């Protein structure tokens, strides 16, 4: 073994060792990062602005509206305001008149789908009659759609553009001005 | 407990007491060079008889209750005491060292005395405990802890012999502290027996977690419950209140017991110091002249080597399987679970230090003593202070 050869061999070995150790360390660090990131993202798997709104179909129960069922994918081409509400939620009740007041004006471009989460239909009818609502109200009796959209506080509203993409998610009640602003965002 | 079950239970305890006297006799004749002498043999036979008596107690109570008697604190701690005896019997058969009996059997007795602090009736099993995993989990953990207790015993003997008592040092201080702790335990046993004999009773009502609960004291209440109301006439007025952060079941009563134990333990310790006129550990040292240090070290290691895998199996693996079945998660960071993990971590460190870094002899002995301290912490403090899923009883 010449000195030169030995030196080269040693150098190769060092390189190999460096490579092998780096790979093992990289795998371990990768696993650690994965753990930290998944832990951080826990409970955050919800639909956000930019996601495609998942499809659903529910029976429409507002007698003032002619639709029988509402299927979200059928509403492509129109902007959709997807509003989750319940009769026992005072802020929901507060924003209903605003929705009703804007509905006639935007009716051709935008559909309001008010997903109700009450138990009994009776109370919903009473509520609709009290506020003379004309937009479609669907009854999510089993909370299927609520689970699908991972809705936590009420009211929660999703504004969906004509392509079916969520433009904005709002938790809490809206004012008339805000509502109109969002309507203009999702108009075709 | 019905008559015959209680009888076998008490007979076992009495036999252990007698056996201890015989084991004590073995160190008195210092001249005999033999490893084993007659007195030790008799002590061992009596211990085995006591153990058999407790096995009978165990079986009878199982039959009477319809489930293995390991379901509440009384039953669990009792079984732990029996396990220490079992572990002693096994290791005595291997190594034939009498001194082991002199320390191990009293350790078992102290555990049995601690058990008597809890209500002794047979309790019905709540739904979460109705599983065969209860038996597997508790029995394996107890036996493992019993064997680990032997490593504590040999660790203590090792330290008593090996620590240089001719001058004051950190080591003598800590060892003396361990001795003091042992006196506290003796104080506990004494106060329990004393007040039981006097048939003392006092009771209080107090608020815990927004619920009114009652607690019955069997010792004069130095520490009463927080904002407790006395329920009996002429009962002693508590001198202090139990702090609110003590959350376990009947925490005020247990806290009060601790205070009495400290009082009696300290008195006994001071008396001992007055009589001996030196550190207790220094006084004991000459009695241990003929014991081989490496033999003690070997037993310490052996018992950890047997106890650690058993503890892993019972305290972590079986526990996890059962928790998965009963509580839908195999691990939940409940205080008892965490302390089991800490115990496991500790003995894992013990083994690594020993096998990989050569911590033999005295270092190993210190670790064995600390390890058993952690186990006792899990049994006593976790149940007394920290409430959790395991605070049944």
């Amino acid at each position, binding site marked *: 073994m010449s000195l030169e050869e030995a030196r080269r061999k040693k150098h190769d070995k060092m390189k190999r060792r460096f490579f092998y150790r780096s790979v093992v*360390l990289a795998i371990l660090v990768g*696993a650690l990062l994965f753990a930290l990131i998944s832990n951080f993202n826990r409970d955050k798997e919800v639909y956000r602005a930019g996601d495609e709104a998942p499809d*659903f179909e529910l029976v429409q129960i507002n007698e003032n509206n002619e639709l029988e069922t509402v299927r979200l994918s059928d509403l492509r081409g129109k902007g959709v305001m997807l509003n989750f509400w319940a009769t026992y939620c005072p802020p929901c009740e507060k924003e209903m008149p605003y929705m009703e007041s804007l509905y006639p004006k935007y009716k051709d471009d935008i559909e309001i789908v008010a997903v109700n989460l009450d138990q009994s239909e009776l109370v919903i009818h009473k509520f609709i009659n009290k506020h003379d609502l004309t937009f479609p109200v669907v009854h999510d009796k089993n909370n299927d759609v609520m689970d699908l959209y991972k809705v936590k506080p009420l009211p929660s509203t999703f504004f969906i553009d004509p392509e079916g993409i969520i433009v904005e998610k709002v938790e809490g009640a809206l004012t008339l001005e805000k509502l109109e602003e969002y309507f203009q965002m999702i108009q075709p | 407990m019905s008559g015959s079950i209680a009888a076998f239970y008490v007979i076992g305890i009495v036999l252990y007491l007698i056996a201890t006297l015989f084991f004590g006799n073995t160190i008195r004749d210092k001249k005999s060079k033999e490893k084993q002498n007659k007195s030790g043999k008799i002590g061992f036979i009596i211990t085995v008889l006591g153990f058999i008596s407790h096995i009978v107690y165990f079986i009878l109570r199982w039959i009477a209750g*319809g489930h293995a008697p390991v379901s509440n604190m009384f039953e669990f701690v009792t079984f732990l005491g029996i396990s220490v005896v079992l572990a002693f019997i096994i290791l005595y058969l291997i190594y034939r060292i009498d001194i082991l009996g002199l320390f191990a059997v009293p350790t078992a007795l102290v555990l049995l005395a601690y058990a008597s602090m809890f209500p002794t009736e047979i309790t019905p099993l709540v739904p979460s405990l109705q599983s065969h995993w209860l038996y597997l989990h508790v029995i394996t953990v107890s036996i493992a802890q019993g064997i680990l207790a032997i490593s504590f015993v040999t660790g203590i003997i090792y330290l008593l012999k090996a620590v240089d008592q001719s001058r004051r040092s950190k080591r003598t201080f800590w060892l003396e502290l361990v001795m003091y702790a042992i006196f506290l335990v003796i104080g506990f046993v004494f106060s329990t027996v004393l007040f039981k004999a006097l048939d003392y009773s006092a009771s209080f009502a107090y608020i815990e977690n927004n619920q009114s609960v009652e607690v019955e004291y069997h010792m004069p209440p130095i520490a009463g419950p927080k904002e407790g109301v006395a329920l009996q006439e002429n009962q002693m007025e508590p001198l202090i209140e139990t702090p609110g952060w003590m959350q376990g079941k009947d925490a005020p009563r247990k806290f009060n017991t601790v205070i009495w134990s400290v009082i009696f333990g300290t008195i006994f310790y001071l008396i001992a110091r007055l009589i001996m006129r030196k550190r207790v550990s220094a006084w004991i040292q000459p009695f241990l002249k003929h014991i081989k240090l490496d033999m003690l070290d070997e037993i310490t290691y052996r018992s950890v080597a047997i106890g650690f895998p058993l503890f892993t199996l019972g305290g972590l693996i079986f526990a*996890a399987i059962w928790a998965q079945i009963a509580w839908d998660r195999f691990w939940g960071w409940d205080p008892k679970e965490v302390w089991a993990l800490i115990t496991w971590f500790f003995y894992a460190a013990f083994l690594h230090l020993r096998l990989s870094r050569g911590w033999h002899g005295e270092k190993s002995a210190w670790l064995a003593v600390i390890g058993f301290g952690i186990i006792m912490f899990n049994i006593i403090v976790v149940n007394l202070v920290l409430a959790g899923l395991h605070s049944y009883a």
Partner: protein
Amino acid sequence: MNKLKCECGHFNPEGTILCESCGKPIEENQHLDGNDKSKLLNMRYEGSARRSLTYNRTIVDKIWNFFSSVRNGVILIVIALIASGIGTIFPQAMYIPANAPNRDPSVYYEETYGILGKIYYQLGFHELYSSWWYMILIALIGVSLVICSLDRFIPLYRALKIQKPKRHYSFLSRQRLFSETPDFSPEDKKKVVENLKNMRYKIFEQDGQVLAEKNRFSRWGPYVNHIGLIIILIAALLRMTPFMFIDDYVWVREGERKVIPSTDGQYYIENKKFHLEYYDEDDERYKEAMERMGQLVVKNYQTDVVIYKVKGETIPGQEPELEKVTEDAIRMNEPLKFDGYRLYQSGYQENEFSTMTFGIFAANDEEKSFGEFTVDLMSPEETYELENGFKVEISQYFPDYILQDGEPTTQSKFPKNPAFVFRVYPPDSDEPEVSFIGIGRNIDPTGENKYRLGITDFSTHYASGLTVRKDLTLPIFVVGAAIFMIGVIQGMYWQHRRVWINEKEGTLLLAAHTNKNWFGIKRDIEKALEGTEINMVVDQEEEDLEKVEQTATQE
């Protein structure tokens, strides 16, 4: 040069402490195992070249070496141990009692534990076990586990594979058990070898030099158990992905059928009945204990359920066609398993009404009844017509009545405290009488009603709380735990024993090594030497100890 040539002709890797082949100590490396300071050789890793001890050039090497040290590993374990203990000082956020006055952690800790509780909360110790630093700590232990094992297993494996029966004198004489027998008979040597063979020692012989070896596999125990632990850590990592692990909760009322959450709407559950059973108060076995506790003890929580699977493709909200998967009872300790999911009995509520029956009475005469009607509180009708011509209309329904700012309203959709505003139409009348009725409330707003409504009957239902679990990582945990146990037992309960019987210039050199249980190997050798003239090995460590003790007692 990175190879060290021993006088026996073997080339050792750099950092070798004892020649892999003959065991001769390699002069310049003796400090690595502390052999330079002791009479006996440190045999822990056979004096093999643990790379970590030698290379320390790049940053990668430095990190590697940090984790390769058992000392650092133990330090990490001790830190984890202390941190875990800290987490038990006060209950973790998830164990804040359900009946605490305020369960918000930011309030609870300070309120219950004072200033210490506040500090505890502010340091984030209330969620210690899912904190980033605790996870990093556990991960670091994992890293140390991997690197320590790699760094020790490979050279140890090499050393035990390469070892030769012939050992260097300085190796043999510095073993803990050693003896020399100058004039020995070859028959005796043969006999000893034969005896060892009978004790299930494997005999390796080369040029008259003998190595008897037993239970080498126990040396792999630590590495096997570390593999088990690594598998457990990997399982814990996989558990963080929703694909492998699902954890959800569902409340189902008796008679209700609903979708099981986190199953992509593919499964439905129907609660047929919930059972809550208590131990018999007069049960002789437990009478004493129950008297002391002063309360009944629950014997069984059970939900009888039917599980359905959705047939065909549906989208959420559509009424699907269902196919029965299974019908079974869920009890505590007896979860229901179906298609990879598990349902656990974990709670119940009995605070909802299912029906209420009202009677119509004369306002001035309690005894006079005009009939009854029953309202299904989950889905009430608009009107109820009685046979005798009475008609009752529901004007308002408050399932969970509360008076807020003077306004009657409901706090939830669940019939926990139902209240109604009824319009009662007497026969042949268009003029309704209004009355408000709820539990403990019966108001006649006008004060002129001729008829009075009263609750005559009601029924309640249980709601059963079930945990929904899917955990594909369980088998991995089980495999990891099993491998760990096998490794521990393999390493702890068997001992690697070696006896060298070498000849050097007509002297028989007898040396032995075991990784634990020296009494055992001494017994073995005693038995092997029985009836021969060969000298029994001397325990050189014990000799040392005795010397120390003697000097200690002399003082």
